[in-house]
């Protein structure tokens, strides 16, 4: 219990440190949101300066940080210059879309990786395992970018999938079930792509963890007892191999918000990724800090969750 409390305190300190660091980074980097306006020959320097001070961009770092913290406590999380609204509602809407995408992708990936990894480990050295190894290595070496682009090309050429976006043109005119089908049609491709990208690492880890367990004495004993193979694999070997897998799961949760940046940008999925990239390029500082903080919260929570699960599931750790 004390251990958990300690971790919680650490987590909060970490988040504060991240917020200060992000803020400092933004202060230090050159340019601000109104630079694009400065390049417009029909707008004067005075107007830009006036707008800058109106939005508080020429105050000092501690003042701005304190104002931002106050805004966070009020639930607003600062102000977005690009969208002319508070940051918080922007974040929740986008985060929901991203979570929809990544949780589906994670589910898909795990559903495929577990059986595949187990089968590969059980048939270690045979052609099936080697073919699997080559396939995962090949998938690992293909950059995410390339994979998503190929999927996009596929979508356009065949029309089996939607070519981007979240909903169709006539979304509002559809019935409820048609709406559901429409959304599924649109996010099949990005979630498929994301699942395929995360699959190889999962398979490899599951495979190596299973291999280690399969070579241990108690499995040999179980085999000697005549326990059927499938039962042995899933009921005996898998739980013993779960230690690294739980860390991996925690890691999946931790990176849930950041893993999908590239796929969202390429396939126009309205999630946190495109928001972050655009905000960085436009120097929309509070949005950047907001997205970073949200991702950090997920990261820390995911690690914490992993530690918790590990604690609960693996008796060996409790002894320490």
């Amino acid at each position, binding site marked *: 219990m004390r251990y958990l409390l300690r971790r919680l305190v650490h987590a909060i300190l970490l988040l504060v440190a991240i917020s200060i660091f992000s803020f400092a980074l933004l202060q230090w980097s*050159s340019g601000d949101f109104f*630079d694009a306006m400065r390049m417009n*020959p029909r707008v*004067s320097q005075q107007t830009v300066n006036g707008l800058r001070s109106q939005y508080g961009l020429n105050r000092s770092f501690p003042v701005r940080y304190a104002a931002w913290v106050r805004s966070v406590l009020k639930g607003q999380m600062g102000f977005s210059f690009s969208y002319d*609204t508070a940051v918080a509602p922007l974040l929740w809407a986008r985060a929901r879309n991203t979570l929809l995408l990544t949780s589906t992708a994670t589910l898909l990936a795990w559903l495929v990786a577990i059986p595949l990894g187990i089968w590969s480990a059980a048939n270690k050295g045979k052609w099936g395992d080697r073919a699997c190894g080559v396939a995962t290595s090949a998938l690992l070496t293909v950059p995410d970018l390339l994979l998503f682009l190929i999927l996009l090309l596929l979508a*356009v050429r065949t029309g089996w999938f939607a*070519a981007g976006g979240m909903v169709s043109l006539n979304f509002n005119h559809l019935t409820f079930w048609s709406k559901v089908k429409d959304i599924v049609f649109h996010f099949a491709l990005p979630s498929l792509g994301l699942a395929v990208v995360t699959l190889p690492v999962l398979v490899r880890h599951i495979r190596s963890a299973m291999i280690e367990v399969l070579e241990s004495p108690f499995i040999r004993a179980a085999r000697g007892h005549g326990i059927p193979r499938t039962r042995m694999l899933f009921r005996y070997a898998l739980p013993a191999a779960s230690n690294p897998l739980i860390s991996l799961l925690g890691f999946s949760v931790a990176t849930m918000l950041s893993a999908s940046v590239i796929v969202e940008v390429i396939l126009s999925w309205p999630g946190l990724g495109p928001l972050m990239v655009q905000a960085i390029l436009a120097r929309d500082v509070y949005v950047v800090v907001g997205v970073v903080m949200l991702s950090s919260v997920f990261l820390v929570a995911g690690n914490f969750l992993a530690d918790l699960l590990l604690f609960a599931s693996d008796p060996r750790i409790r002894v320490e």
Partner: protein
Amino acid sequence: MLKVSPWKSASTRFFLAIACVLFAVSAAPAQVHEERMVTNNPPGHAGGEIAVALRSDPKTLNPAFAMDAASQEIIYCMNADLIHINRETQQTESALAKSWSVSRDGRTYTLQLRRGVRFSDGKAFNADDVIFSFQVYLDKKIHSPERDLLIIGGKPIAVQKINDYSVRFHLAQPYAAAERLFDGLPILPKHLLETAYRNGTFSQAWGVSMPPDQFAGLGPFRLKKYVAGQRIVLERNPCYWKVDSQGNQLPYLNEIVFLLVPSEDAQVIRFQAGDTDILSRFSAENFSVLERDQAAQGYHLYDLGPGLEYNFLFFNLNDLASKNLPQIAKKQAWFRDVRFRQAVSSAIDREGIVRLVYDGRATPLWGQVTPGNKLWVDRSLPHPPRSLARARELLKSAGFSWKGDGTLIDAHGNPVEFSILTSSSNAARMKMATIIQDDLSHLGMNVHVVSLDFSAMVDRLLNSFDYEAAVMGMASGDADPTSEMNVWVSSGGTHLWHLNQTKPATPWEAEIDRLMNQQLITLNYERRKRLYDQVQQIVAQQLPVICLASPDILVGAKDRIGNFHPAILEPYALWNVEELYIR
């Protein structure tokens, strides 16, 4: 007693007649004759909806603050101005002001407003709304960028109400492009925004998350629905004040849906797939991809020729005395020599840029005014072909020479090397910089390209001056030279190569100042043209900017859209949105 009927008495009849007239007169405002504007397009028929892609979310629907393209495009469809610039002819025409007159000294404009026009919520439009709108635009505390456009001769224009349908504008000095001022300044509804203005909350008014019933505009469409991050739906304005030649009320379309599609490639894909009806302003590489499926998919592509955008290379000629940049300051000895700049210009392969960067769909430029600006381009400007020999002669005469291995060195023996700054988000300019880098290597110059994100680049160009050369592009909002005053006048805020001048740094910049200020107050077009031609000639000789190319404006639309007449001024495809209809 005599029984006389009151109706028979002459005096009663007289008083009754007066009473009727008075009654009729007092009832008149409720039935003012509506003065509609009759358009001259081929008539279409009502109905249908179209989908258009937007590259980014609109930032605001408040015309006083909208600076980005997405917001401006939507505001254009929802609002109207007093005098409008016809994007096809590039000349002004009447809009909410049905006529106007100019005083003899050119400093007073009296506008007659159309009567019987109503906002999209049904409330009447009159001079009070005009006064209110200009009050807002001119208010210093609001910080609207529109205010800068309304400062003539150092003083903001003054507006005065004559009567309910007539206003007068006073300018501090005669101004050639005065009529064009009014285009793009939508008239705001006083009845909806006055409270916010008095409370000081005007800057938060009409943000994108406002409910649609709080908007009212004079444009062909009004806001129906906004879904953040996805779409904006506009519906027909039933009170719109334009009719076609057959008397049908405009607009024809029932709805316009703006879909948010953040990347151009995604827009092209969705257009090809039939999700959107209009593809506005796409890049040359996608033209050949779309061209193949034209007939099969039922759309048509339009290459409208060069727009107003001009891309250029320029050197850092700023005064670096107060900055700690000794290496750049040393190199400025090269950059400041006009022969060096002329040699660079002579060595650049503009045809190669047109072919490789824009797939042939661009025009090479030797001056800042493109051929698309029909009224102002100086057709007598020389277009010298690329000549490395000429470049070498110019360099020799400026004291440069070549080492044995071909490296160019200056008179002190320093090898000529510098960097070209460009924005990483603009692929075309990065390509141009790469081609220039290769061209200049033939002269023995060691050039490398540095790409930064836009904000970082702008910071270096405008604040820290920490750059050597840069490739940039400018696209003025209007064809008229006055829109570029800040670029060419030496004290201007976008006089990029040498900012913050208190007095002109060179004789030719002083001459440009004189010519630009002169054309500002010259009302006669021919005289203005001659003055501006001279400016173009000086720029082409002195080369503060080395112009490269201007891309063609490319748009696409489905065949089923009638009255589609894209133009090279923004908004390219939707400038006549009220005339579009579905065949």
